[in-house]
């Protein structure tokens, strides 16, 4: 098992290298004067010169890359022009908010898509089956930002059921003492039920928006995979052995059907991390998504670079985790390398 993890780590390495190189090229390949970009629209000539020197832009590309790597190793992602703070610090502060949102979106999507997919597969041709297929096609057509607005309009403005879609926590409350940075977890740890409910309320609409988009591929894959497994020969053996229906469905069918679904998670995370930005804008969520949007508006370039790098590395790590998880579920993986 350790061998498998190490092998996967080695496999992820080229991707990390690729990410670092691409982000380097993106920032140094800017048309015009990259130093001017980093210095900002209102910089003086001396400031631009300073930036040029510190970025090493007067040196060769190879030397620049070396400098870039050295800065990365030190955790130096530059400073934000608007706030003057180091980018890394700000990203670290805001990351938990985005992570909490993404995780909740994923959990929501899984808890709806997987049971529905299983139901649709066990009752082919029923209304559930047709509903699933419709939702699957419609789901991937929904623009995330539009869904978010619609949900906010219906549930906040029209029905008044949801709290004001502005931010992570209502003004009446103050955030829980930070342990993980995830308000839901922290409020539970602090045993503050009211705070937990308030946080969950704020999370509901944004998480639902995120989840809706990825529900479609997950449901489609679960249904297809389950259908395939249910007609396979080992299920017939299980039935012929008189195993109870629940055992056949869960321990035999579902576990096997899970495999392609786990593989789908890779694509799902790509959507989630990307759509995160859009959802954060709609709901004024204080994560790294809105951070980068503010930076874009202000032509503040260092945070954008930091954002792309962070999201990409996070994505590589998530894909690695998925690969390892798959290896745990499927014992055949080791032999096929």
């Amino acid at each position, binding site marked *: 098992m350790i061998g498998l993890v190490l092998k996967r780590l080695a496999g992820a390495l080229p991707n990390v290298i690729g*990410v670092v190189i691409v982000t380097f090229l993106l920032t140094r390949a800017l048309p015009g004067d990259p130093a001017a970009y980093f210095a900002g629209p209102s910089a003086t000539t001396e400031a631009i010169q300073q930036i040029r020197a510190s970025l090493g832009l007067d040196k060769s590309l190879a030397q620049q890359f070396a400098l870039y790597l050295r800065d990365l190793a030190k955790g130096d992602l530059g400073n934000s022009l608007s706030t003057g703070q180091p980018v890394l610090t700000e990203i670290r502060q805001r990351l938990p908010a985005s992570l909490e949102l993404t995780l909740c979106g994923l959990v929501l999507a899984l808890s709806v898509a997987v049971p529905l997919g299983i139901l649709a597969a066990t009752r082919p041709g029923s209304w559930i089956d047709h509903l699933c297929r419709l939702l699957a*096609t419609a789901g991937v057509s929904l623009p995330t930002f*539009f869904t978010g607005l619609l949900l906010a*309009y219906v549930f906040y403005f029209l029905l008044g059921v949801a709290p004001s879609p502005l931010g992570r926590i209502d003004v009446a409350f103050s955030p829980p003492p930070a342990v993980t940075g995830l308000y839901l977890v922290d409020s539970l740890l602090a045993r503050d039920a009211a705070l937990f409910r308030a946080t969950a309320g704020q999370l509901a609409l944004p998480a639902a928006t995120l989840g809706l988009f990825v529900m479609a591929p997950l449901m489609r894959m679960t249904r297809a995979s389950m259908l395939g497994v249910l007609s396979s020969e080992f299920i017939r053996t299980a039935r012929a052995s008189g195993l109870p229906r629940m055992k056949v469905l869960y321990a035999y069918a579902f576990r096997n059907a899970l495999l392609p679904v786990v593989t789908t998670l890779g694509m799902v995370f790509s959507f989630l991390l990307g759509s995160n930005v*859009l959802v954060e804008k709609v709901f004024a969520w204080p994560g790294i998504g809105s951070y980068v949007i503010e930076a874009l508006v202000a032509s503040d370039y260092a945070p954008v670079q930091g954002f792309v790098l962070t*999201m990409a590395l996070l994505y590589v790590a998530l894909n690695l985790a998925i690969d390892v998880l798959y290896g745990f579920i499927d014992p055949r993986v080791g032999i096929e390398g």
Partner: protein
Amino acid sequence: MNAATLRHVRYVATQNPVTLAAFLMFSVLVLLALAGPWIAPYDPLASDTANALNPPSVRNWFGTDALGRDILSRIMVAARLDFGIAVSAVAVSFAIGATLGSLAGFFGGWADRIIARIADTIMAFPLFVLAMGIVAALGNTVANIVLATAIINLPFYIRVSRAEVNVRRNAGYVEAARLAGNSDLRVLALHVFPNVLPPMMVQISLNMGWAILNAAGLSFIGLGVRPPQAEWGIMVAEGATYIISGEWWVALFPGAVLMLAVFTFNLLGDGLRDVMDPRMRT
């Protein structure tokens, strides 16, 4: 398109009313894209602050926005821009991606390895994030949106064409063409590739929907399209601030049309798949 194909298309169309509806919607969209500026009732750029934020009425079917511009007209004109972005991005992506993928699938070896590495590197990023990075780096223009969308769709076309070419690489007619003296490249271009095209059509249609969503998403966060240009994504962004105060029409209509367009392409892709799928033929 011989008689048998036409008959089959008619068969699929009657069996599948949804696909027919999608095709009609598609035609409407194409019409709008081509003729938008001329059939729009008002000038999409003409602001009339006295009539700002009017709800849908007989005068303005979809209402007016914060600057008093007619939303329906803006939506019609935006069709051209969004459609144009999607078509250009998919065309570029297809051209480059299919070429690279075919080369990789046909020749294998180090060509395959390098091209696969390029595709993997692009896929190592969450795609929308990469698009953001590209547009931010290269400049806030429509051309760069097209470029960014094309780049993030490359791995998709590389993979599909590589797989399709790989399957056909050792087919009988390929051997025959080789034996007849054609160079490898000629065989690839004239014999293998035309057979790869039909399955790729399905993917292209599905990809168009995704490309529109991508472009709209980028515009929503302020990348690419600048006001006062009319584009569905940026219109939703402009309307976002008003939706919570009750002026729903500013964001809803552009968003709904956007959704319909993407839905159309997805349904069309599914329908095309049914036409191509030999199992549906009687």
